């Protein structure tokens, strides 16, 4: 079922690349515009990169390479793409997971409070604060965060990204801020979902009855409601991981994280086709896998919620 989609993804990235104006061979031969592209050199480099073969042959070679798990080399650095992925994917993944976590930690309290105090001032304030996150592009939030950290607290995250297993303290100091910048943006949607789901749960008759009975019962009701609501919301948070991936493109640049987002942006600018194709494919696979997981989980949980 997902295979044709994957195929479509590969086709899309591959052929879209080739339509792009600009040629990696020119960049290599002119060494980034610092030299002159001579006709002979250009032809030689294009042959080296395989750009002179017909499109479908290039496509076929790529797919065949993928099947053998040979991901090729970057045209810009000459290094095997597998190495790049091993280095960069964990960074982006960690960022995406922490971003999703942050957005959940912000969204759920806000959504629950908003639902419990529906249409009151608290609700309105909470919703405004929550929606505010949506109105700021994450690059702006990120820039502001760094700016205030430096000018108000004279503090800056430690230089030189380290993984969470190397030095957890430094890692958290580096990654919490981009997670916050993007997480705040994502939390708005999740908060809205939380509120809506909470309202739906709260609407049920026996819940309403329990609620009217008094404070002690209310606590139990809230706990019960949250238990029921948590699952669908958390599965939705799973989707956030996929969405968080796109936030990483911007956050990695501002917060100096050596992740896939940044590498992809550079690759697009350099017309480094192997990297663009492979990274986009990988990102698409991750997104699809997460979506699939969420779809399955949600479907499995659905009858239970309705029953409750």
């Amino acid at each position, binding site marked *: 079922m997902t295979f044709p989609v994957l195929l479509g993804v590969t086709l899309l990235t591959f052929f879209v690349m080739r339509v792009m104006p600009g040629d990696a061979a020119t960049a290599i031969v002119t060494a980034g515009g610092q030299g002159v592209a001579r006709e002979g050199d250009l032809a030689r480099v294009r042959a080296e990169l395989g750009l002179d073969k017909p499109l479908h042959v290039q496509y076929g070679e790529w797919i065949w390479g993928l099947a053998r798990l040979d991901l090729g080399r970057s045209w810009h650095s000459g290094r095997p793409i597998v190495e790049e992925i091993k*280095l960069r994917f964990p960074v982006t993944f960690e960022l995406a997971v922490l971003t999703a976590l942050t957005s959940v930690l912000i969204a759920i309290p806000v959504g629950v409070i908003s639902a419990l105090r529906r249409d009151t001032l608290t609700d309105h304030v909470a919703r405004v604060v929550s929606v505010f996150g949506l109105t700021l592009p994450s690059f702006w939030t990120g820039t502001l965060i760094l700016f205030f950290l430096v000018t108000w607290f004279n503090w800056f995250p430690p230089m030189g*990204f380290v993984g969470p297993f190397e030095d957890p303290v430094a890692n958290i100091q580096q990654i919490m801020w981009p997670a916050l910048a993007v997480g705040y943006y994502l939390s708005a949607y999740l908060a809205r979902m939380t509120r809506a789901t909470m309202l739906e749960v709260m609407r049920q008759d026996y819940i309403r009855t329990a609620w009217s009975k008094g404070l002690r019962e209310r606590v139990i009701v809230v706990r019960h409601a949250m238990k029921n609501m948590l699952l669908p919301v958390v599965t939705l948070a799973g989707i956030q991981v996929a969405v968080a991936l796109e936030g990483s493109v911007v956050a990695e640049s501002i917060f100096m994280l*050596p992740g896939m987002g940044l590498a992809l942006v550079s690759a697009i600018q350099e*017309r480094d086709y192997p990297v663009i194709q492979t990274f986009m494919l990988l990102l698409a696979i991750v997104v699809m896998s997460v979506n699939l997981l969420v779809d399955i989980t949600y479907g499995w949980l659905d009858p239970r919620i309705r029953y409750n």
Partner: protein
Amino acid sequence: MAALLMMATAACAPAAAPAPSSASAPRAEAPSAAPSPRPAQASTGAPPPAAQATRVPQPQVAATPTRVATPVPAVQPGEKPVYGGTLTIAHRTEPATLNPFKEPSITTHHVTFPIYEYVLRRDPLDPWNKIVPDLAESWEVSPDGRVYTFRLRKNVQWQDGKPFSAEDVAFFLKTKANPPSTRIALAAYYRSITKVEIVDPYTVRATLERPDSVFLMHVSESRQPITPAHLMKDANGKYTDKVLDVRAIGTGPFKLKDWRHGVSVVLEKNPQYRIKGLPYLDGITYYIIPDRSTQFAAFRSGRVDLTSVGGGTYLTPPELKIVKEQLTGKASIYLVKTALQYAVRFNPALKPFDDLRVRRAVHLATNRQAALDLLADGIGVMGGAIYPSPWSMPQSEVIKMPGFRQPKDQDVAEAKKLMAEAGYASGTDFILAVRQPDQKEGEWLQNEMSKIGLRAKLRVLPLTAYYDSSSKHEFPAYFQLLSMPTGHPDDIAEYYTSSGQVYSQIADPKVDALFDKVAQTVNEADARKLSAALDHYLSVEQVLGVVIAHPDGYRAAWNRVRNLHLDGAGQLDSQRYEDTWKTGE
């Protein structure tokens, strides 16, 4: 040539012992105390030896005074260097490779400068005038200007323990003269070499086809470090670049410790460096910081000692203001003579720039002073096709010429007249291609050109698309950022001569002839005069492009970093930090 010969012999003269001496002269083994730092001013003690060997720190000031930099805290006489510490430097882009033999991009070179050395080196403080010895102790040029002999230092080691010898330099010259692959940095510099001989284990002789007034400047250009021959040959003796892509083995004061992709390039001290007692620092770390505001924030917080170098990474006017006003006494700014040019290049095969009158109109109307003020905060110089250097038109004359002079009323009126004569009294539209990073400058130029009726539509292209497009001569005009590594017209020959492929569509025999003559004139003074005439022809008469400004840049460093010979250095001038130290942490 005679002047160079004199400088060469002077360099061999033994340096007076305690007085300031050139970094390249071998130091006597000082048993106990660390060698005294070369003070910023030639202060006490014996008079400095030959002019060429002394570090005179005044920045090379072109005739047009630029904004005066805040005085950089000079090393005080009696101040003792401190051993230890790591210098942290911001770096904009992850280098694609660490191989300086194959990669001309300064992204690679800036992180490898401390690792490698050159045959000859441009004096970082007087790069346009002085060449100093580096791995070669001395050199000679034959009277006909075709034979160059380099005498190399003995007892120098590569960082992997193997000895350095003429073999390495000979391999370097031979390979660049006959490049076995397309990916060799600036091989064009050596195209006129016909023969390379190893005269003895420490002497190399190169013979050129014709005299080349720029040969020594090319050899000493900062992107020509000597790399170990034994690591550039594979098992069959064929050239390979694979080893040096990831291993950096040089003769310089620092060695490569670690390259963390996308994060940092870490160098550590080379204890076997040929100058005993140096370097003072334990290491240098370059942090990759892609975003400009983030770079400044990192610097400001103290996590980074020195901001980066390279077009697009210099301090912006607001950042300069902050350093000058809020960090007075704690950090300083350093002027970098970038030898960059903002220019617009015309495609003389397409309208409206097929008409010389239109091109001249742009030249006359462009407000270069405003360009400097708005695009470079007044930092930089005005000039023509050749960066103001000993090879260009004299600056004092340039600022009085039409097109450059202030006020502009007369020139703008003249420009409008020319436009009308060419048939464009009501103006015309055209496409101006701009590289993505230069959008702001392109915007300004668009506004400027609209004043004489040339209405530009900006086409923003990412770098690869831009170079592709320009080599296909697609659009009538291209906004361009160029740099001139040596200040010699050879740097821009490819853009103007008919054999060059980049932008020129006119085969103008006069241009070709002038370029050739400059290259082959042996007498330097004569060559410079010819070059000035060439500059005039290109900038004012033929007008294949209009150079808008030569912006310079600023870097900032915390004052705890001592003895940084940066102020007034060129963008492409290598900084090795061999005699730099840090106080406190």
